[in-house]
């Protein structure tokens, strides 16, 4: 259940549009079912009133869209950002990917978003309605008109169960109450992987990555992946491939991507959300984040605009390569 209502967001959007503060609104558009929401730009109050949605399925992070959607805009684009989205927003600003002046940010609190595949695992197929009710979702299917009540704890997406912050690190205005940075358990799974033998870990990743179909959705949704021309799309790079020649190549794609976003990945969790094969890509990114934290001190990408990521910064106290090896060998 979200703490602010659709009505609050809609009236905010309409009033900012009508008083000229913004010229368009980036928001979630009503889908075919109760859960298939599409990111969309709204230009009129009528459209917003009729088609804007805010519910437990508004997981999409809008930060990356600002790169393309503010390019030719007259005036400002209104964007609603959940706490985790604001980290990506700052990181993109740090990388000069869009003009801050073209955006008006309304921060909105978030109680966590639902993963529809988890809902289906409980309710089965044929969902006609999934509404928030108390501490869970009330789900009706064509097979059972009696709604089934499923606690949020069972259906929230992984990233939300391990939410790292309810605090907005960027906004022009806030709707609702501000939250706090959370001491989450997001590195627990990484620790499990670390405690495996390298053979076990290799087998784990091989099992996961062998499902990859190289659709590139993880890259395309990633706010840290905003290169004008990705090396994996560039036929002149020698690394371009539309499909793997073998499963090893798949692993290289993911390893290279993880290195490329290291220190810039905010752990927004979009990559894992969109993967059609449910590959836990966040574990790869979190391993990098955890290592950066332990080698260079705690660092959260996107916490502030203009921060220098440890990997691109130099400090006399920086760890020498030999220290890293020593640590590895002692593990």
């Amino acid at each position, binding site marked *: 259940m979200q703490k602010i209502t659709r009505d609050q967001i809609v009236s905010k959007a309409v009033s900012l549009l009508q008083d000229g503060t913004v010229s368009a609104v980036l928001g979630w558009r009503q889908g075919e079912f109760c859960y298939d929401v599409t990111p969309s730009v709204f230009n009129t109050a009528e459209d917003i009133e009729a088609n804007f949605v805010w519910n437990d399925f508004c997981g999409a992070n809008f930060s990356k869209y600002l790169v393309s959607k503010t390019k030719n805009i007259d005036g400002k684009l209104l964007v609603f950002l959940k706490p985790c989205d604001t980290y990506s927003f700052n990181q993109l600003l740090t990388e000069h990917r869009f003009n801050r002046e073209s955006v008006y940010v309304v921060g909105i609190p978030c109680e966590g978003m639902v993963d529809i*595949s988890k809902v289906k695992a409980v309710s089965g197929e044929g969902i*006609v309605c999934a509404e928030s009710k108390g501490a869970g979702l009330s789900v009706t299917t*064509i*097979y059972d008109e009696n709604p089934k009540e499923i606690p949020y704890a069972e259906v929230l997406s992984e990233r939300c169960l391990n939410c790292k912050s309810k605090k907005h690190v960027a906004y022009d205005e806030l709707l609702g109450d501000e939250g706090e940075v959370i001491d989450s358990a997001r590195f627990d799974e990484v620790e499990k992987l670390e405690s495996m033998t390298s053979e076990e870990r290799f087998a784990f990743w091989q099992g996961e990555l062998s499902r990859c179909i190289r*659709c590139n*959705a993880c890259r395309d949704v990633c706010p840290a992946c905003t290169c004008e021309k990705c090396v994996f*799309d560039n036929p002149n790079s020698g690394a371009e491939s*539309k499909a*793997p020649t073998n499963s090893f190549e798949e692993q290289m794609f993911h390893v290279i991507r993880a290195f490329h976003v290291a220190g810039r990945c905010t752990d927004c969790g979009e990559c894992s959300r969109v993967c059609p094969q449910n590959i836990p890509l966040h574990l790869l990114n979190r391993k990098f984040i955890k290592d950066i934290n332990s080698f260079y001190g705690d660092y959260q990408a996107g916490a502030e605009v203009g921060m220098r990521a440890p990997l691109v910064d130099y400090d006399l106290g920086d760890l020498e390569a030999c220290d890293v090896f020593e640590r590895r060998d002692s593990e």
Partner: protein
Amino acid sequence: MRRISLYSLDSLFGEISKSMTLYIPASDNAGGAVYTKYEDGVEYLNTLNTVKSPKNFFFPHTEDLMEFKLQGKNIDILDIRQESEDFAVFGVRGCDVKSFDILDRVFLSDPVDSYYATRREHGVIISLACTKPSETCFCTTFGIDPTEPMGDISAWMTESHLYLQPVTEKGKALMSKIEHITEACDDSEVLAQKDKTKNILSKLPLKDLSTDAFGSGKTKELFDSPQWAELSQSCLGCGTCTFVCPTCQCYDIKDFNTGSGVIRYRCWDSCMFSEFTKMAHGNPRLTQTERFRQRFMHKLVYYPENNDGLFSCVGCGRCLSKCPISMNIVKVMKSLGGDKNE
């Protein structure tokens, strides 16, 4: 029609795999299903659709076509295709079975794609009637009856039995191999199941989706619609929709330098990718809107135009459940179909 008790499902699978490799849907350990080679210990998963469609069996994601070897000043061209073995696929749903028909018209019309043709010849499809369709299913829009799936052998699974009905010569040949473990029966249980499923189909949210606004001859009307821009505005240009789609058929051919020669292979391509059909002068479709439009125009207008009105979507619903932004063919059809799809 013949049947076998579900308790003996494993012996059926075992019997089939004596004469050919058998693939059945099994858990992918990540909430989905994947066709898996049947061996001891592989458990059948009664699932609606696998994440990856069975088109992979005939048109794999990547496939080596030939090899060039340098021998002094000569270049040898080697046919390196692996001779296809006989195989059977069990549990293919009606929508996916229909997708083979759509792919056949592309790959088996002149010039015949011999790689695809060989696999097609060696594969036996055992379909499976649906009993619990999803809200994302709309195969009936394309005239598919999920209670009567085609294939080489049609199958129905009730609470107690698996019913089998051969459709083609290939199917009959396989049936004769499993005759001794199946029993002859009438179709009363199957008919009862069909009625029940038809009742469910009438409750599906997309049951009234119409194709009236689409098909042969609609290019002029639809191509310049201002709605493409809006529909495609948040499309990521990933290939998810095309790679999970059982009817998407585009591929690219590439050369891989092995150091001592070159392997020429093909791999799936996607009209959603920025590099799709790039030519010397550049890319013919400059923006995502044009790429997005291509995918749906191909399925709903161009393909039917060249194939007696047959649409190249089977309503499997994969793109509905897998698109990261929840944009899909249904939303396109509703938006462009105007009143016909209110």
